[in-house]
């Protein structure tokens, strides 16, 4: 991982990864999003799809149709055309204020996460609700947002996997995620929402996009139960354009 960024690495036989940083950073995330958008609008022959992770852009291609070395050179040339770290965020961003029950049965690892972060329960709740989190990328599972930055929660993943239900909120390495479906995870399950990041039956199946903001509003488990009754795919969120 050492060396200057951005750097290009090979992924399997039919992928190239452009990395903008070794660690989570806001400008590297913006660079990855902007570089992906530029690649998608360029529409190069032989590229099958592009995607971003937190600080990297992935390009998938047919390895028998496209020479990886030539594609890598072309990516390098495009990289040198702009200061990608200075690019703006995507257009059409939205703000979601999402009700979330923290701790208790709704977030069994809340106390452990606060302890690992060296915070009191009250300070941990404040850190999770005080400010909006940026959706830095969608990945792992359909529609699943990786949100940050949470500098107070620079805590590692766990070695043992636990099961988290759909709508569960989990923390690790300065980020929060919301699970679209029940899933095993090594992240700490701190809260529960009725938010659905993936709605396969809807016209827009993926609720969030990279660049959107999510702010949690702490609610009791009883309030969450009432929100569930309404069966709103955004789980009672207030949505505003940014």
């Amino acid at each position: 991982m050492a060396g200057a960024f951005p750097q290009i690495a090979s992924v399997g036989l039919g992928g190239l990864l452009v990395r903008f940083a070794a660690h989570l950073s806001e400008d590297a995330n913006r660079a990855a999003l902007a570089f992906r958008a530029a690649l998608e609008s360029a529409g190069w022959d032989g590229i099958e799809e592009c995607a971003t992770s937190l600080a990297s852009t992935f390009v998938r291609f047919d390895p028998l149709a496209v020479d990886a070395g030539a594609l890598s050179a072309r990516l390098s040339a495009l990289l040198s055309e702009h200061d990608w770290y200075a690019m703006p965020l995507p257009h059409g961003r939205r703000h979601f204020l999402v009700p979330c029950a923290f701790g208790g049965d709704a977030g069994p690892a809340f106390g452990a996460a606060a302890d690992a972060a060296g915070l009191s329960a009250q300070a941990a709740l404040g850190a999770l609700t005080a400010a909006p989190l940026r959706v830095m990328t969608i990945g792992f599972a359909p529609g699943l947002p990786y949100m940050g930055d949470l500098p107070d929660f620079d805590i590692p993943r766990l070695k043992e996997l636990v099961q988290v239900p759909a709508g569960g909120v989990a923390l690790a390495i300065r980020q929060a995620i919301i699970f679209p479906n029940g899933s095993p995870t090594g992240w700490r399950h701190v809260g529960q929402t009725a938010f659905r990041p993936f709605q396969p039956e809807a016209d827009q199946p993926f609720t969030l996009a990279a660049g959107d903001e999510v702010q949690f509003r702490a609610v009791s488990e009883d309030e969450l139960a009432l929100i569930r009754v309404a069966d709103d795919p955004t789980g009672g969120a207030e949505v505003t354009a940014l």
Partner: protein
Amino acid sequence: MRQIIITRAGPAMTVQDAGRPGHLGQGLSRGGAADPLALAEGAALWGQAGAAIEMAGTGGVFTVSEPTRIALTGAPMSADLDGRALRWNASHMMPAGGVLTIGGASAGAYGYVHFGGGIDTPLVLGARSAHLSAGLGRVLQSGDKLPLGPDTGQTTGMGLEVPNRFEGGVLRLVASVQTEAFSAAERARFTDTEFTRDARANRMGMKLSQAGAAFATDAQLDVLSEVIVPGDVQMTGDGVPFILLPECQTTGGYPRIGTVIPCDMPRAAQAGPGARLRFRFVSRDEALQAERGLRDHVAGLRRAIRPLLRDPAQMGDLLGYNLIGGAVCAHQEEE
């Protein structure tokens, strides 16, 4: 409307096609048949691509509402039609109301039954595949009825010689973004180790077990989440390797020691419980050559089908067969 009636469903049967490429950026992996080569073999046998039923480990009992061509591919399973044994890797004619019984696999993990015209359930995000980890579709259940599309072909009674990819063996890897995060000694120990496919496996991935120490890197638990592709061999937090399969997550932070090349993925997915697996790193050139070989093989499947040689002594209903038709189809059937 022609339909399949599932009289008795095995424990893990799903509708599968080629899956949903193009949604990596939204966190949805491609999914699709665990053994795409078996789909291609089925398409070659009945001359038309389409969605089939994937059966993990064991099959079920099926009937059809109207005469329907079927093909059986993938992990070889016992199969009979109204009590008459059916050849695997072959196409057959199933009469209306006929009872197709598919039992357990004698080797491998995923068997496929293809029905002429293909399963015609509604497309969701461009495909019919169940993607269980994404919550798309579901495991098939006894009593389910599945519609079939129009069947443009007529050929049955054809067979295909299939090289054995159902008992594990050597999987070729290319280096990937985190290969260097493992020391040369750890990588050497990895390729020197014989693994056993653990009972814990599903369409997301298969766990591998081995007698030695866990495989570790220093970076293990704080690697930045990055893209994952099927074939990646991921070390979870406790250093146990998983081969990631078509329903895998799209990003992840556990380090991956390498990526199984696409043309070896059918062999990986078809390693049944207890199968032995080894890994060998290969150069990119060797991997590309192997991939080209697989594509040529798939392109040649249609030409490789042969009429089944029937033993008249075992044909209790000889007069029921059309002995001159069926085996030859004058027009080219296209996908």
